[in-house]
């Protein structure tokens, strides 16, 4: 079966490519090959391979989208975030658990258990912890620097919900849009990042 799938792909390529030169495969061809060569497993369904406008533009531009286009899509992404009214400051202790858990949404994991945000994979966060990544900026003392008022809360909430609303080709996943984290989990993370009581600001 695999061979048939493969031959179909090769045939397709032969149609697209001229016989002499080996050109880069087209965007459409790559997407077709990806869909052919993966299979659904556990909670990871095939629909996860359908590129939305963000993934498509970032793929096609190697993460350097034209500024006007980026601005327009970022605005759409921001407008689509359902921001709860009132305070977004949750419980920093719960937020700490979410920030320091990297589990969730993988094909080998139980979808009934809550996901983590895996924040520490990429960000320095909280002075008490020393194992953190550097793909994203340090968030240490973020609340001290930026305050913990409603504007700061809304910024952190929407940034975690959908980082692409601010930087189209950011490396950060869209934790709210994808349903990885719940509204409450994101509020708890807001508190972990911003609250004066949080060890992140001590």
């Amino acid at each position: 079966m695999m061979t048939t799938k493969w031959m179909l792909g090769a045939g397709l390529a032969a149609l697209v490519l001229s016989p002499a030169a080996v050109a880069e495969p087209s965007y459409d061809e790559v997407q077709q090959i990806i869909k052919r060569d993966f299979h659904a497993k556990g909670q990871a369904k095939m629909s996860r391979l359908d590129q939305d406008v963000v993934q498509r533009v970032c793929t096609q531009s190697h993460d350097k989208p034209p500024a006007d286009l980026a601005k327009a899509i970022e605005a759409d992404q921001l407008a689509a975030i359902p921001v709860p009214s009132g305070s977004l400051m949750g419980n920093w202790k719960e937020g700490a658990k979410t920030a320091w858990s990297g589990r969730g949404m993988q094909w080998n994991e139980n979808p009934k258990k809550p996901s983590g945000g895996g924040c520490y994979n990429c960000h320095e966060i909280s002075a008490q912890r020393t194992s953190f990544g550097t793909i994203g900026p340090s968030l240490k003392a973020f609340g001290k620097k930026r305050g913990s008022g409603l504007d700061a809360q809304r910024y952190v909430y929407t940034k975690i919900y959908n980082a692409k609303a601010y930087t189209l080709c950011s490396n950060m996943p869209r934790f709210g849009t994808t349903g990885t984290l719940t509204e409450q989990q994101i509020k708890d993370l807001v508190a972990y990042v911003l609250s004066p009581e949080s060890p992140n600001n001590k």
Partner: protein
Amino acid sequence: MRASGTRTLLLAAFAFAAAPAAAQTSQFEKYQKMVGEDSPAELFVLVGADLWRKKQGPKKASLEKCDLGKGPGVVKGAYAALPRYFKDSNQVMDAESRILYCMETLQGRSRKDALKRPFGNADKPSEMEYLDAFVASQSDGYKMTPGMSHPQEKRAYELGKALFFARTGLYDFSCASCHGEAGKRIRMSDLPVLSEPGPARAAMSTWPAYRVSNSQMKTMQWRINNCYRQMRTPEPDWGSEVVNSMITYLTVNAKGATYAGPGTKR
């Protein structure tokens, strides 16, 4: 593996746990050097050599006549010259795909049977992990010369490159999200920029590898599979054009390196 090897490993593991976080990278490099010559990988090589010679399958044949690209029966230097295009299968194949091909053609085993368990675990490694470790060990010291001239080899490289930058999965990651910028870390692990020759050489010349964190021998097919798992995609088909093209792209980036596997990794 000698008993002293295990002891060194345990001592290193303790030293490791006690070390301050910032120093862990260099600690691991020291440790890597220390166990490099006396790694559990050796055990996999020995078992793999036995499996290579073992008569199996409906044809009751061994894999000794397998053509890994240097002619039937030649294992020396073969791993370092893969992936490459094979006329008989009309595909670009990496070492594991080619080993599977030999299981099918020489031993008469079905693809399904031979692929029942491509990835093992700490308690029970897979047949492929042993065989891949053995085949790889026979290229120790050889220059890495993956196929780059056949149109299908060029196509595999270009497809792998496109895949490297393709955003996909629930988290919008591409390979470049983590492996695209120098000097970055995920948790405490340094992330090699695999589109660049230097880091690609260091990484690709030491796969397959015994991974201390899993206590297992891990192969390139597993490495790509596991990256996609963490990218929250569905699972890539084992030995598919996607996986083999990724391996081709990464290996071509590493060309010219002196192969030194199977290695030992974090």
